[in-house]
């Protein structure tokens, strides 16, 4: 381009524009990095976790007699005993009790395989002996090996036997904990927000409370665990490991999130509504109760759901208040020892047996599905009830 014709020609312009394109490409790369990490992460977890939703069963002849009720391990012989699950055998006397007609017969049953055989059938690393592998392969050729949907995973609690462990107890614990959290955090959080937004005079004290709430939101969660341990457990004597103490600890952690989102929701209600209320002679509380609060409710609910999702995934403070105890049975009250799903994931992740690995990943899949659907509900509520004044 001859530069005597274009007065705006700048010699560096090409280089500068190249640099600009490069800069834009870098920022795009950063976004692509984040998204591709997310996809890689999800694929990795699903790949590790989906085999846990099936479990290997093997068709075997089981001898049933009086001796079996006393010593279930005598029901199977030789190689069959080696590949069957000890947990299934231990439960055999109960099965016999339910079916009295089986006594002194030989039944052909689908027997739960132990975790090592299960891993072998799923084509993973396994410590099964060569002889058993050959035997299992023979059985498989006869169509006596089957992978069925894993109901055990959904219906039992933790166990030291991998094939017998499940997430039911921890899900019950999680539900109880979250109930306690919400019963405490929701009313207190909303009341605080109402006070700060509608009632409080703008003075020193109110500012202290607001600054304090902002700081509370950024305090590391593990320190809430220290509070729970020192005050709730050691001082007030709340039972350790119980959903009660876990829920109380999480409630304090959730408070700032609920307060901040409720305040924003209350703020978005236009003041003309309040003015109209005053004009009709209502008191402040009547205006808030009958007009402002109902209008702000969708926003408050959205914030609360997001804080529930936050609390659901929280692990560190719950470990400190003892919710990683080995709990095979589901809790029946708020003061029973219990565990929660993230803590269960943490415990399984530390287990040496390979079979726990896929259960950990499967537990994570369940947790993520719950969290994502909670977030989806929050987004839906926000979209549906969002109102431009």
């Amino acid at each position: 381009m001859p530069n005597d014709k274009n007065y705006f020609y700048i010699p560096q312009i090409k280089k500068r524009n190249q640099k600009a394109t490069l800069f834009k490409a870098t920022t795009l790369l950063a976004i692509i990095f984040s998204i591709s990490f997310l996809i890689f992460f999800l694929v990795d977890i699903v790949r590790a976790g989906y085999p846990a939703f099936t479990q290997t069963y093997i068709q075997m002849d089981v001898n049933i007699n009086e001796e079996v009720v006393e010593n279930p391990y005598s029901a199977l012989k030789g190689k069959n005993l080696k590949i069957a699950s000890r947990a299934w055998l231990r439960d055999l006397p109960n099965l016999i009790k339910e079916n009295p007609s089986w006594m002194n017969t030989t039944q052909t049953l689908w027997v739960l395989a132990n975790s090592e055989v299960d891993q072998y059938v799923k084509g993973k690393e396994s410590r099964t002996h060569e002889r058993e592998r050959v035997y299992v392969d023979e059985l498989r050729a006869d169509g006596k090996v089957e992978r069925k949907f894993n109901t055990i995973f959904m219906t039992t609690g933790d166990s030291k036997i991998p094939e017998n462990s499940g997430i039911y107890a921890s899900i019950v614990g999680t539900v109880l904990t979250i109930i306690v959290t919400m019963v405490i955090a929701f009313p207190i959080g909303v009341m605080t927000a109402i006070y700060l937004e509608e009632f409080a005079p703008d003075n020193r004290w109110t500012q202290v409370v607001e600054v304090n709430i902002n700081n509370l939101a950024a305090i590391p969660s593990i320190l809430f665990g220290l509070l729970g341990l020192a005050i709730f457990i050691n001082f007030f004597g709340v039972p350790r490991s119980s959903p009660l103490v876990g829920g109380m600890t999480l409630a304090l952690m959730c408070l700032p999130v609920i307060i901040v989102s409720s305040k924003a929701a209350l703020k978005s209600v236009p003041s003309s509504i309040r003015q109209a209320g005053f004009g009709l002679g209502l008191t402040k509380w009547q205006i808030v109760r009958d007009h402002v609060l109902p209008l702000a409710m969708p926003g408050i609910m959205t914030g609360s759901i997001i804080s529930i999702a936050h609390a659901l995934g929280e692990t560190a403070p719950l470990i400190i208040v003892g919710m990683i105890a080995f709990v095979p049975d589901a809790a029946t009250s708020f003061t029973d020892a219990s565990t929660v799903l993230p803590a269960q994931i943490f415990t399984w992740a530390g287990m040496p047996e390979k079979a726990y690995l896929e259960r950990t990943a499967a537990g994570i899949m369940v947790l993520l599905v719950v969290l994502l659907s909670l977030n989806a509900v929050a987004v839906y509520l926000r979209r549906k009830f969002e109102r431009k004044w």
Partner: protein
Amino acid sequence: MSTQTLYLIFFGGLFPLMFLGYILGRQKAIVMRSQGIKMHSQPDQYGWFSALYTGLPIIMIGVCGVFLYLFGFRAIPASLLVAASLGVGALSLALLIKSIKASTKARDLVEDLINGMLIGASLVSVLTTFGILLSIIFEALQFFKMQSFFNFLFGLEWAPDTAFLEGAGRADAHAAEAKFGAVPIFAGTFYITVIAMFVAIPVGLLSAIFMSEYASSKVRAQVKPFLEILAGIPTVVYGFFAALTVAPLVVKVCNFVGLEAQYQNALSSGIVMGIMIIPFISSLSDDVISSVPQSMRNGAYALGMNQAETIRFVVLPSAMPGIIASMLLAVSRALGETMIVVMAAGLRPNLTLNPLEDMTTVTVKIVEALTGDQEFNNPLTLSAFALGLVLFVVTLVINIISVSTIRSFHRKYKVSTL
């Protein structure tokens, strides 16, 4: 009588009494008004008035009773307390109903009580901060009675294993003395945080620039949920991912280039922690960058700058205080992060600069000291609170600085999101 039945009786008495108060108070006001007397308030406000002020003494006595029991004062049997509180409630109900006159300012009294309740609720969050502070300081002081404060902050060796024996009174004269020098732990925490920031700051900041400057609103709406999902993944899941996938990957890559790495290494937990923090930095910086006024960009365009130059020489410098504040918040987040380092960084206090070795952090040591059954009389358990105190002070200072910076930044540009 079991505690549960007592609670049942307490609440079983409280709510019907309050309901009765509402009905009777309202009824009396209606009757009075129908006689042509001019009342101060509406009938249902008299109802609320008698209901709330019936419940108040009952709950007060109940709460006082619970506290008396907690502090070991058990001279009055619990069943008597419940009976007394309900009796007082019934008495005050009768007195209230009797005292309702035309001049009773039910409306104002209800408003006062509700205002008091709301103030009480807002006290909870303040009490929580004090609760954290007091519980940590109290136990940390116990620790510093046994161990020197100076050694804790500046000692180079952390070897607390024999402390458990001392606590149990089985100390051996020959056993080595327990050492609580926290420098290796602080160094590990700091090092992993630095690695995390090396990942999080460039990616987070560049993403924020893309989202706020380049992306159309349509692209924004599609990309934002992905970042939100990234932010919503629980840390225990990141920890599992770091230990299961990233750590072996790091070891493999290191072996390939001829380096030796351990399976628990600072690098993998740092990288994953950095990824966890990306959405945090990007959303905060996004807010800050978006609040830079459009007129500044227009001025730069008028001087002949292209978009990238405008961003680099005008937008970013003026957004810098806010961006730095958001990075500080991210640092405090990384310092307090627990699950990733517990699962992937290791337990051994290791004073080294090699990121391929295992390291430990403050949070890991807190978790390690407080899991399992331990008594509160030995320094190993109490050391968790000393470490917690350091963590609390450091994160609090960082938070205060960054929140006030962000606030003054927003005030400068007349936008308020925080």
